[in-house]
Each structure stands twice: as C-alpha cells, then as structure tokens.
C-alpha cells in the first residue's frame, strides 16, 4: 500500500511549497515532449522550488511501468494510455491516474511504405480499394494498444471505410523504431508522433498519407500524467510542476525564434537524438509529404495555444473512453463524465494557470467536428460511442 503521510519536509516551509522538491519525469523521444525538456533545462522549475530530472524511456509500456512503480513521479504520456491504466484495460490492474495538464494538440501522422507508394497506393481511396481487393492483409503499426496513435489510426481507417480490426493487422512498435520496421518490410504503414513520420519521409522511406490534425483539428494528444496517489500525496509539487511546464510551453510558442531554438535543443543526443531537419519544419507547421506536396498547416503542433492546448478538458478525456467502447476495449459503458472528473485535474490546472496569468475558460467541455463529419462535444458519450457505422462493440 502507498503511504499517504506528508513529506518529512512539510513542516519546514510554508503551505504552498512543494512537499517533494526533486521529481523524476519520464518522456519519450518525440517532438511533443518539448515543454518538459525546456522546463527542466531552461530554469522554469527552480522559481517554483523544483528540480526536474528527465528520464528518457524506450517504450510506452516501460514508461507506464515506471509511473506505477513510483520510479517516475510524472511523465509525458498518451491520453489513451492514462485512461487505460485508470480503467484497468490491457494487462495491468486498474490504478487511479491523474491528467495534470495537456502537453499538446496535433503533430502526429499516418505514413505508408515505399512499396505501397510504388504501386500507386497514395490516396485514401486507393488504400481502401487495395485493402478490399488484395488477398494479403496489410499490417499497420501504432505505439500502444490503447494509445492515441492506435485511436487515430482506427478512426482514420474507419472514416475511409476500412475496418481497423478486421480488414488490416495492427501491431505495436515503439516510435523511434518505426522506420527500421518499415525498412525491414515488417509493416506497411504506421501512425506515430513527430519527428518519426518526417524522419521516414526524409529518408525516402514512404510518405505521409494523413496528419492527425486532418482527423480532428486541434485534437488532444499527450498529457502530463501521474498516478492519482502522487497528485494526492504531493499536491503542492503537482501544482508547481504544472506551473513550471505551463510557463515553458508559453515560452516556446512566444516566437518562431524560440520554436527554432527548442527544435535545436530537442535534437540533442539526450533528448530526441534525431536530425534537426526531421524536427524543425513540422514543429513550425511546414509539411512535405514525400509525394511532392508542401504546405503550411493551419493546425500544426500546438504546445500552448494560449492555454487551449494545456487545459485538461473533460470532453477530451471522455472521447478516448468512447473509442475504447467503440472498439471493444471496454465491454460496458463506463460513467464517462464521472471517470473524466476523477482523472482530469481541472482545479489543479486552473490554480497553476491563474498564477501565471494564463486565460482559463470556465467551460470544461469543448466542441469539435471530426473528419467523418461527426460532432463531439461531450454531451452524449453513450450515444456517440454507439453511433459509428464501423465498430467492434461487444454485446450487441
């Protein structure tokens, strides 16, 4: 059992000071870990009485285990992974989790292999025809069974009339290993966070077929997560951590110069260990898909967006549960709103944001239209989860 007694240092200082001053923060080598790396290395945590020790992880499963064992105090985490652990989906006992804040919107992508490119499968329609006419099933990789990339891949395929659990195979591959798997011919496509999609394009290993923001403009993606136990035992540390990371997110988006400098920092061996040319353009919204198309994306990676990318909206958390239900990962409907209220640390976020003068809407739901035309606003999660043409709902 976890001991919830206050830290031995609590008596030493005022009531707002962090109970625990040195925190181990897990991250994966992805562009959207930027706010954590910048917060830890650029003096954003010291004014809040914290030292952040960055701990790079090699897989999402390993990062999850680190959070659950207490080796990591908080981490860069997939929205879906956090909810799967909370609900006990996927081989681990349910552990109450906390989404402390959002880390980003957008900035993930679906790529296809050079072999598919060579036979002219370069559009959604061509892929749909190929999948339904070819005798061999294609294999797509995502990064975690209940992660955001699995959900984007499934949602996108389904929106094109491809059943993600029947018409294709899907496997889990850690983000940084996607290109190697593609090269070895073990997978035909993947959904992954940057810079690994750009990295494949730059190595002429296939092309980007769809960005995640084309599925849902300004979609929720990574969060800063901890166990609920951490947030309860060290509430001041949790608030100080959110304030530090939020200040870093704001700084990164203050100017294109800051974004470029951030890309340089990320490319270092200790962080992404990837070429700057793979990281910087898409961080700034400049896309090349490998088919000769270039564009500036109006919904590129957002790390702050005046706080809109950081607020832990209840409707964002609920959406991932509707997709778990849709694809049979949840056998029954959870109490969507009640679970989201447990996990999303809205009060903590609002306290931290207000202390930095960052705008905090009163609303806890937001409305979006997705690629298939459906509108998600959190008002009818049950109806939404059960309203898709392609699904794997059990018990129906």
């Amino acid at each position, binding site marked *: 059992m976890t001991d919830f007694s206050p*830290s*031995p*240092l609590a008596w030493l200082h005022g009531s707002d000071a962090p109970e*625990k*001053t*040195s925190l181990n923060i897990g991250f994966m080598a992805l562009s959207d870990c930027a706010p954590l790396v*910048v917060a830890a*290395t*650029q*003096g954003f*945590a*010291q*004014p809040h*009485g*914290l*030292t952040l020790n960055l701990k790079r992880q090699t897989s999402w499963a390993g990062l999850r285990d680190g959070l659950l064992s207490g080796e990591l105090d908080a981490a860069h985490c997939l929205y879906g992974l956090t909810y799967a652990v909370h609900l006990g989906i996927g081989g681990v006992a349910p552990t109450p989790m906390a989404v402390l804040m959002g880390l980003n919107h957008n900035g993930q992508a679906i790529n296809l292999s050079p072999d598919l490119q060579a036979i002219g499968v370069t559009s959604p329609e061509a892929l749909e025809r190929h999948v339904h006419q070819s005798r061999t099933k294609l294999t797509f990789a995502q990064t975690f069974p209940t992660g955001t990339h699995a959900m984007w891949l499934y949602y996108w395929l389904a929106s094109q009339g491809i059943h993600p659990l029947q018409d294709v195979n899907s496997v889990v591959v850690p983000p940084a290993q996607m290109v190697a798997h593609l090269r070895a011919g073990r997978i035909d496509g993947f959904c992954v966070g940057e810079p690994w999609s750009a990295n494949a394009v730059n190595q002429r290993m296939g092309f980007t077929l769809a960005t995640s923001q084309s599925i849902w403009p300004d979609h929720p993606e990574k969060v800063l997560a901890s166990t609920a136990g951490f947030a309860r035992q060290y509430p001041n540390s949790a608030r100080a951590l959110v304030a530090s990371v939020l200040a870093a997110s704001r*700084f990164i988006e*203050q100017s294109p*110069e*800051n974004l*470029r*400098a*951030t890309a*340089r*920092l990320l*490319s*270092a061996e200790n962080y992404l260990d990837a070429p700057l040319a793979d990281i910087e353009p898409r961080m700034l919204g400049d896309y090349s898909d490998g088919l000769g198309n270039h564009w500036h994306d109006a919904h590129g990676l957002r790390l702050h967006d005046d706080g809109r990318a950081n607020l832990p909206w209840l409707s964002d958390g609920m959406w991932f549960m509707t997709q778990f239900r849709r694809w049979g990962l949840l056998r029954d409907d959870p109490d969507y709103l009640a679970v989201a209220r447990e996990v999303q640390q809205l009060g903590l976020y609002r306290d931290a944001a207000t202390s930095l003068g960052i705008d905090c809407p009163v609303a806890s739901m937001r409305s979006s239209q997705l690629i298939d035309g459906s509108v998600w606003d959190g008002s009818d999660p049950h109806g939404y989860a059960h309203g898709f043409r392609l699904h794997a709902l059990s018990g129906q």
Partner: protein
Amino acid sequence: MLRILLIDDTEKKVGRLRTALVEAGFEVIEASGLTIDLPARVEAVRPDVILIDTESPGRDVMDQVVLVSRDLPRPIVMFTDEHDPAVMRQAIQAGVSAYIVEGIHARRLQPILDVAMARFESDQALKAQLQARDQQLAERKRIELAKGLLMKMKDCDEEQAYTLMRRQAMSKQQKLVQVAEQIIAMHDLLG
C-alpha cells in the same frame, strides 16, 4: 537475512553482542576494535547495518562514523554504557541512527534494528531533498546574477534577458545555468 558488521570496541573482547545476534538469526561479520579503517571495511563487507559495541565512544570512534556517513551511508546502531547526553548528541550528529544504552537482549534486537533502518531511510530521503533544494537555490542565484549582467550589457529588460539566455542555451543544447556561468565568466574576464 541481514548482514551485520559488528565492531567490538569493548575491553572484554568476548563479544557480548555476538551471541545475541547469532541467536536472533543475523549474519554477523565481526571486526574487533576501531583500529581498523571503518570505511574500507564497510566497502569490502557491504553490510546492511553497522553495529558498534563500545563502553564509551571516543573521538576516534566518532571520526570513523562521520567518514562512513559521508561516503558510504549505512544505518549505524551504537550500543554503549555511556549515559552522558552530550556524548549521545555527538554520536547522533556524527550519523548514528540509534543509540542504545546498556541492556542487550536477543529479542530486543530486531525492533531496534527495524527502527534504526527506518530512521536511516527517512534521513537519507531528507538529505537528498535538502541537497536538491540547495542546488536549486545555488543555480537560481547564478542565473539571476547572469541575467542582471546581461540586462546591463544589452540594456534590456528582465524578460528579454531571460529570453536571450534561454535561446542561446537551447541553440547550443545546453542548460540555462551553463549559459549563465559563461556570461559570468565573460563578465569577469572583461572586468
């Protein structure tokens, strides 16, 4: 099974503790007297707990304890006949986790060791947190100093100075405190 390094510093040298420890089921590695180099011994034996049995802990005993606490921290339990509270305080300051005056019974050993180990763990956690805090404060001071120097050199405001330092640090894949040190060094050089 707990590995115990037993330091016998009593006149009798018969080892009044040894029998009790073995009876209680501990693995006991014995070293007699404090003429030995305690840190070296701890390095070689890697005990879970160090027990010092001494009639009255002298200055050399305390010195050895201080060295172990600094370099190879371990729970240290001291059994002694010395009642003087000043000596006890000295021993605790040197890094002793538990100080037991007289009366050693086999069945009391386990709880004494449990308390000593728990005490030791919480002390270590406290020490690590305090060290982290000291380092935070030290880094913050250096960053503030560099920011002030830069504000004067560039004739800019606080936020601009921070932004310049951070952009420089990130572009060079360094930490902010490293750039702060470079600014301070450059300022010292140019006087």
